[in-house]
């Protein structure tokens, strides 16, 4: 397991780097799919089967499809996007380095629990167990999440659904229809 953990760990970091540094958004998205997939492997490695499955279904499946869809819909993947100004770039890098250093310092020297005392019995990741806790101890939270998702759907529909204004003038279905009409009028 340790070997797999290391291999997939390196792969995860590499693909995450791809997400951040890929010049084209679509490439970023594909790298992200990879990252999410590798993370699912990690979950599985840790015995969290339920989460691993969810990771693949929800993230790699649903959310990333949505993202890719939007990228394609808006035609954003036209070329490499410019990064921020140099100042932002450097200060961001410095901050991130500092941040990472701090975190690593904290995780290697300041952990308040004894490493390695974990109880890794098989029941922790058991989907049945997770499901039981979900609808007993966390029932309210579960219902609220349902409500949240519902609200999110309504919100998304309201936001995205604007019939009056085309998403992109000169493109999309209406534009195609319009140009077809133009062509028709020219022919006539």
């Amino acid at each position, binding site marked *: 397991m340790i070997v797999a953990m*290391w291999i997939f760990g390196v792969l995860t970091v590499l693909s995450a780097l791809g997400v*951040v540094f890929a010049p084209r958004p679509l490439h970023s998205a594909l790298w992200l799919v990879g990252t999410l997939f590798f993370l699912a492997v990690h979950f599985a490695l840790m015995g969290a089967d339920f989460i691993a499955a969810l990771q693949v279904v*929800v*993230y790699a499946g649903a959310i990333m499809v949505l993202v890719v869809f939007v990228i394609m*819909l808006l035609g954003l993947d036209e070329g490499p996007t410019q990064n921020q100004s140099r100042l932002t770039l450097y200060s961001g890098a410095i901050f*991130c380095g500092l941040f990472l250093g701090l975190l*690593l310092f904290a*995780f290697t020297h300041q952990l308040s629990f004894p490493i390695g005392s974990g109880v890794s019995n098989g029941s922790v990741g058991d989907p049945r167990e997770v499901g039981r*806790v979900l609808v007993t101890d966390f029932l309210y939270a579960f219902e609220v999440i349902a409500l949240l998702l519902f609200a999110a759907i309504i919100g998304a529909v309201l936001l995205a659904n604007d019939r009056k204004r085309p998403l992109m003038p000169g493109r999309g279905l209406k534009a195609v229809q319009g140009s077809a009409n133009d062509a028709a009028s020219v022919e006539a």
Partner: protein
Amino acid sequence: MEVTQFYLVLGAVLFTLGTLGVLIRRNTIVIFMCIELMLNSVNLTMVALSRQFGEVSGQVFVFFVMAVAAAEAAVGLAIIMTAFRNYHSVRTTDVHDLAG
């Protein structure tokens, strides 16, 4: 390196990478994806600690985070579309009506 510690460090690295992306990228969609990365790094940490303590609630929280992430994705992408409709761009440098 011990398993839990390894995953904590991995989570930290992923989170930092996500943050870096948020800070340096201009494309809103990429920023959005970086945020997903950050969320996932937290998920990773949580599952690792759940395993460490044999406590299933950590995984339940991951479940919630995913649900919220899904909701966020729906709304966030809708916002990106609306912004695009209004500004014909999704770059943060082009959308700055909050300037004081």
